[in-house]
């Protein structure tokens, strides 16, 4: 059983904050989740290759150069909470 600190670190990894109460609830639910995951762990998968998509024939490929899409810069910037000139802005990193 992992402790609260472990889940707090996980939350940090996914850039989320949980209240003390929420973390307690999550920790309490972990036992159920662990039992559920056990059902998978006990299945024999010796020499079974993992399947990443429904079909095996999915692969990455290089697209033809003639397929280009451009999005209007104004529209991109209009969606940002703040921008200046050609840039999306945020609090200064280097001060």
């Amino acid at each position, binding site marked *: 059983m992992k402790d609260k600190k472990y889940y707090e670190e996980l939350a940090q990894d*996914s850039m989320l904050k949980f209240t003390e109460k929420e973390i307690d609830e999550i920790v309490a639910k972990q036992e159920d989740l662990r039992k559920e995951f056990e059902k998978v762990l006990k299945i024999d998968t010796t020499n079974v290759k993992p399947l990443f998509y429904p*079909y095996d024939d999915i692969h990455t490929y290089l697209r033809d150069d003639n397929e280009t899409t451009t999005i209007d810069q104004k529209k991109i910037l209009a*969606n940002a*909470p703040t921008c200046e000139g050609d840039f999306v802005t945020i609090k200064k990193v280097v001060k």
Partner: protein
Amino acid sequence: MDYKKLSILELHEKLINKEINVLELTKNVLAEANKIKSSNAINKLIDEKAINFAKEVETNSNINSLLYGIPYFAKDNFATKDIETTSSSNILKGYIPPFNATSISKLEKQGAILVGKAALDELGMGGVGLYSCNGIITNPADDKRIVGGSSSGSAYLVAKGIVPFATGSDTGDSIRKPASFNNIVGFKPSYGAISRYGLLPYSPSLDTVGFFTRNVTDMAIVCDATFGYDTKDATSHENNSKNMFEKIEGLSKAVKFGYIKKVIDDLNEDVKNAYYNLFETLKLNGFEVKEVEFKQELLDSLSAIYKMISFSESVSTNANLDGIKFGRRATGADYVEIITNSRTEGFGEEVKQRFLVGALNLNKENQTIYLNKAKQVRRLIVEELNKVFKEIDILIIPPTDKIAPLIEETKIKSTPEKEYLSDILTLANFNGSPSITIPFLKEGKLGIGININAKPKEDLLCLQAAKMLEDIIGIKNEIVED
């Protein structure tokens, strides 16, 4: 004009015979949609745009298109050009995509009129209809019960007759479960048959674009308009199912039906008997109906595999929601704090908890133990399904064994040995099968559907079998009246 009980095909006939016109129909739909705004099923109505497009469609009428002038709602996780798209999440409030999802462009090209965006469980996660950031959506036939989700708003709007069809997306059962709870038709086509370009992702190896209609023939019409390979989607697949509307009646008598005996026997008595009666009717109609085997340990692992794979993919695909480039930004001392605060304030509880489980699976120490294992078991599930589809052509599955549960019942666990039944529709997401739920049984105004599956990329066969079963069952074009 009372259009609400009319199917796509009936509306089409009235439009080409000039009994009604596109503009009048569009205005009527908007008026009806406005009446049910308190249901929370609608995230946005686009009155002005819809009316302008209706006028344009009328001027350049393409009466050869069966979707010419047909109104519809898009689930709010489909990108719609110049129309706010939030996926029912506070973090995306104010986001206006500069492009259309491919499926939306295709519907537009056929002259279908988008009237608005339907609410969903936030970012497609939930399965109940209680997790939209704008408030809960309840069953249109009984407000104490769930509508089902995540495509809850779309299901509601089709079941109420506001529109004859709506788009949905299905990662585990998000189209097919609410279809069962609302007496309507819900189809998840083969993985990759309809482009996912512009569908806001939840779990890309499972997500599938699909639709709600009120009969199977209408479903063939919307599929004909939207199927097709798309270079913009690397997981898109060519599908040989074409002209499905024309061929919908052509189910061969040689088609073999099958069911997993334990699955049917685990249903409650009345529903079980209804299934066995239906199998007898199929036999009387000259079809072979066979029992097939399926390893129970794989069925029992469905819920866990779904969580391991989809939650991990969801935390990864939604990492771009940070309040920096688009959507809502919270305050903070530096960029880390801004992103963390934007995500913490922007996401609902269900989403955050799924992200945490996803992060748990993606953690270095757990990737092999959990995620890789889940993907190995996914292959075993797919291989087991391949065996099934060597014996039979159509697999019949119960989407649910009861009417939509009461809202308070959603937190109660079912008996452990029958728990797998509530996750059984995910089979078709793991192997990419076409899978359709149609109405089957009725208890008052509420319904219980039946689910029909064919092997991957056999979408036409799946729809033909559904049409034949729809004719036998005899329930279609139902709406929930006020």
